């Protein structure tokens, strides 16, 4: 209690012991040097980590449109009678270790648009009881099917579900010739977050009236499967923050060799043509920092260098214009 009284007194009298650092050269320059020395190795490590990740990106949105339809891509994609399967061959430049993640990449797709990003109902997704009485005004204009029956899952996000599909086959390079085609199995489970499977998307909520309207947006859902098993929906509904994004499509549990070719059969059905968006398929391994992204490494190196250069400059300035007391007083 003596201590407390002392503290109380010091507190009310504003006499608490205080440490008063001032920005003197002998404090600022070491800080800069320290930060520089710390950041450069971290930057190198990040760079290395990013470089160890190999990825193959292939943009297929234009390639998959037949030449004669290029002038009317929207007409092509909206024409249900045309078979839109197209095959693309991906050259694997470096060996890729399993697991290999497959992403689809969309460009200029505004999942973060104000009208779009909020157009879903979180209560409806998890609880079958909420289905009928949940307030799904936010989902408009994709809230109710005809006669005012609610759509499950409602909203623009679910309605515009991405529905291009890919199947993969490898043509391993064998010594002395071209080998046979070997299908690569794409595992499409476990691509969502566990919390989504277990909590956010209900085990007893089934799609109802989904894509039944006159306008069909994106993909359809299997009405017999509960939402908790519809992982592609979960991935899609975890909206992206930027207009260019990748979403996990599945993963391949196989190692790919350098120089090998992977054939991808794309069923091209998602309309990215009306807004001139890009679609790409991505094969990528994963490193400790996620996918291939040189940004962090570069930024660290630049920041570290800048700190060191700044420290050097300040030291030079300090040497040539020293801060003596004379200097301080006489100017």
């Amino acid at each position, binding site marked *: 209690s003596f201590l407390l009284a002392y503290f109380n007194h010091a*507190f009310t*009298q*504003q006499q*608490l*012991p*205080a*440490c*008063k650092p*001032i*920005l*003197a*050269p002998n404090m*600022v320059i070491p800080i*800069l040097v320290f930060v520089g020395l710390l950041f450069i190795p*971290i930057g190198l490590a*990040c760079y290395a980590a990013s470089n160890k990740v190999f990825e193959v990106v292939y943009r297929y949105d234009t390639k998959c449109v037949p030449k004669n339809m290029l002038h009317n891509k929207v007409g092509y994609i909206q024409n249900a009678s045309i078979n839109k399967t197209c095959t693309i061959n991906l050259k694997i430049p470096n060996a890729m270790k399993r697991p290999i*993640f497959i992403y689809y990449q969309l460009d200029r797709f*505004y999942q973060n*648009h*104000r009208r779009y990003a909020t157009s879903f109902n*979180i*209560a409806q997704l*998890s609880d079958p009881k909420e289905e009928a009485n949940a307030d799904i005004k936010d989902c408009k*204009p994709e809230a109710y099917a005809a006669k005012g029956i609610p759509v499950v899952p409602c909203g*623009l996000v679910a309605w*515009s579900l991405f529905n291009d599909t890919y199947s993969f086959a490898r043509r391993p390079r064998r010594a002395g010739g071209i080998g046979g085609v070997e299908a690569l199995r794409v595992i499409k489970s476990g691509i969502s*977050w566990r*919390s989504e499977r277990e909590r*956010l998307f209900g085990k007893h909520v089934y799609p109802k009236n989904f894509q039944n309207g006159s306008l069909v*947006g*994106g993909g359809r859902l299997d009405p017999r499967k509960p939402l908790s098993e519809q992982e592609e929906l979960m991935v899609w509904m*975890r*909206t*992206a*923050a*930027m*207009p*260019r*994004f*990748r979403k996990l499509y599945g993963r391949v549990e196989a190692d790919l060799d350098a120089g090998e070719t992977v054939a991808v059969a794309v069923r091209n059905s998602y*309309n990215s043509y*009306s*807004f*001139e968006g890009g679609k790409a398929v991505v094969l*990528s391994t994963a490193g400790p*920092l996620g*996918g291939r*992204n040189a940004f*962090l490494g570069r*930024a*660290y190196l630049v*920041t570290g260098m800048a700190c060191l250069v700044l420290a050097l400059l*300040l030291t030079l300035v300090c040497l040539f*214009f020293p*801060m003596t*007391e004379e200097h*301080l*007083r*006489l*100017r």
Partner: protein
Amino acid sequence: MQRFVYINDESCRDSYRDNRVSNTKYTLWNFLPKNLLEQFRRFMNQYFLLIACLQLWPTITPVSPATTWGPLAIIFIVSASKEAWDDYNRYLSDKKVNERRIWVVKDGIRRQIKARGIHVGNIVWLHENDEIPCDLVLIGTSDPQGICYVETAALDGETDLKTRIIPSICADLSSEQLGKIKGVVECPNPDNDIRRFDANMRLFPPIIDNEKCPLTINNTLLQSCYLRYTEWACGVAIYTGNETKSGMSRGTAEPKLTAADSMIDKLTVAIFIFQIAVVLLLGLAGNIWKDSHGCKLWYLMYPAERPWYDFLVIPLRFELLCSIMIPISIKVTLDLAKGVYAKFIDCDDQMFDPETNTPAHSANTAISEDLGQVEYILSDKTGTLTENRMIFRRCYISGVLYGDKTGDALKDARLLNAVSSKDPDVVKFLMVMALCNTVVPIKSNDGTISYKAQSQDEEALVNAASNLNMLLTSKDSSGIAEICFNGSKFYYEVLDVLEFTSDRKRMSIVVKEVKSGKFLLLTKGADEAIFPRSCPGEQTKTYLEAVEMYSHLGLRTLCLGCRDLEEDEYKEWSKKFQDASCSLDNREHKIAEVCNSLEQGIHILGITAIEDRLQDGVPETIKLLRKAGINVWMLTGDKQTTAIQIGLLCNLITPESKGQLLSINGKTEDDILQSLERALTIMKTALERKDLAFVLDGWALEIILKRSLESFTKLAMMSRTAICCRMTPLQKAQLVGILKSSGSLTLAIGDGGNDVRMIQEANVGVGISGREGLQAARAADYSIGKFKFLRRLILVHGRYSYNRTAFISQYSFYKSLLICFIQILFSFSSGLSGTSIFNSISLMAYNVFYTSLPVMTIIFDKDISEATVLRYPQILLYSQAGRLLNRSTFAEWFGRSLYHAFVVFLITINAYADEKSDMEELSMVALSGCIWLQAFVVTLDTNSFTCPQITLIWGNFVAFYMINLILSAVPTLQMHTVMWHLCNQPSYWITMALIVAAGMGPVLALRYLRNVYRPSAIDVLQQIEQTDGHAQAPGNLESSTGTYLDYLLTDLRRNKSSIHQPLLSDSASSR
């Protein structure tokens, strides 16, 4: 309009209100609407209400309405509960007053009722030391002469006792009759003039004939005064409750707004304009984007038919998104901080006055910053600079200067000898000292005599006389005064009192020596009032020299004299005096004339010199304050010579050769104006070389205000010192008003009731809880025990408060702008649709919680230590000139928030690109980036770290993660598990470190370069503090540092006129 009060008549009781006193602002019923209305009078609150209402429209709101309604409700509840609590306390004190038991006479029967039950017309019976419950017309007292004494300190601050007389018509009533009388008092409707009461009274038969008797203020007992030295008194209630004179003059003081506050308001308006511009721009761009691109996005399902208001939707969305630019938390944060500053003042042990046991107190918790920006101090003299404890020190009797050597006449052996040898001159002198006054001797039970005097000087004289064996033992009601000299008693009959007025500058009494029957006129007064009336041939020259000498010592002089009167002469004069006293028009003038006719041919007995000692530490304090760049003016009711002497003694003015005193006076109005112009010319030419001051008196001021206000204002702005003498309370307030209207920040300090107006008028009013009662202290924003505490109040508390408020307010804008800029940047990548990158909970918590706590740590911050401030007081110029809170400092913070927004946003979207580009994660990363940055920003801008600061800054940081980890566990939120994911990613932590390094590196480097190569005065002092800590500085360092500081601050001093136009450069530029 007239009011007719029927005495003791129950039938008319309902026409006026009862005596329920109510100072409360609200009732239980109107509290909510009235308080809400009051709060919504402020621009900021209206703005927030508008935003909150807009948020109720789901189409445009980017986040849930709770983000504004929540904080708004909290702010309202906090302010409302503070108001409610204050009002409840007022109610309690009212209740105490209202429930008091008061004796009331009804139909001749005395009974006790509650004070609130008194009605107009009731007869109220009071006992000694009772507080008077309502305004009464006195009709009877225990005193056979019909006199009673009241103490009016609570009303006008004057502690001397005032006599009140019953109207002549009631003079002969017995106490039984008093309870039964009927009559009517015709009086004006209630007003707040405590010096005027023009009414008349008529009693109904059978008691007296119904003759009209005029009443004046001298016949009244006013509410909240005290009855003293009178066994009982009774009166008729005329004004009750809040309609009494004290109730009507109470009034609510206008809330004061500090200079810092108005700067903040200006900045708020600027930001508001900026916000509108941004909103219009983005709204337009958003509409264009929607029409050119948005319609092509099939997944957005834009309807073909759009409502008419469609073009408004996007701008309004941006308005809501940008609404946080004006931080909703700033008011709460500032109020809280100001409350703490006030507490620090209240608790300061170094401002505790052990002599009177009074701590410093801040009654107004909202204006501490103004203390740090004070430019003018207007000080009262008596009681503020001086102790207001008059002590008789010296006297000059028939050619002998007593007390010359010892400095105390009471210890001068020559005087003591003269007394014991009954030197006739000395005896006569002492007799005048003892008799010529209106002092009331009061004999206590143990036989000791104490004196109750109208003025401190009289008390000092009577006390001194009693110490010299001339003891005034009693004054009875028939006017017989008993004096005991060397053990033998003398009796004098006091026939007339020729009262003191400030015009006459003297007072006299006529007495009759009972033993010999001789008539005497005893006089005392100012030398200039007595000498011209001395008998011809009197050697006034020596007396004049004595007066001169005494006033050079700073002593207050009085000249004593007497004159023998012939009985006939007296009788004749007495008749004239009676007539004059009874005259209805121009009474005062007539009385003065009659008095003057008697006060001729006075035989001068001697000079008394009374010392009013300077308070402890006054010269040092004034020197320090002047060094700090504050202009100190002395406003006094005292005469010029004394005022100048006191001014010299307390370092206010510099003696000749280095200083010069410009006197503004003259015989005619034109003379005065000419001397004003002359002073102005000298002031313009010689200000740099000499310490100039001007002196003027009340009369000159009156003419100047009427004829030449403009040149006086010029003079006032240039003059560092002024002595204004013979000021009335109104003139004091006028002077404050002149300085205030020219844009200066004024502080008025005083101790008496005559200073109240000036204290209320000034930006900051400081009251000294002194001997003249607590009136000034009660009206003031701050009350202190001694003048010397002003130094600490301004230099320590005021300065720190200003610094802290400057930081808190700008930081509040910084953090709001930061988050707002991020939103704007994000909107460019979300199709200009007005999506919020942050979720509702984060936004709400960011403003109210995450960023409000760390910034509060700054209330413990000290840029330089108290000792350093007191050693280099000129540093106050820095805050005086508003160097820490102005447009340029704000621009700096604005730039910083823009830069930080870019850092946070660009790093976040690049580090979290492609497959990591998840809205929830990205939003959390950006938010954490802001939290990290702001912790470092506060750290960088903190000058001294104490343990609460470190705990709050980093504790807040820990709390941020705790809260978000916990929120991540709530399954119904969209951010479910997001924070857990992030905390497990190394890339998250790497990103945070990058944000901090990239955000703070340049800020640190710039700050360092400026600290070292373009230091501000504060930086210099910080460096000095550091070096002093290591090695004791040599003696000459201090002076050279002072010179350097002065050099740094010269520009500030030169720019004093433009103080409120913030200076664009932050250091001493223009070399």
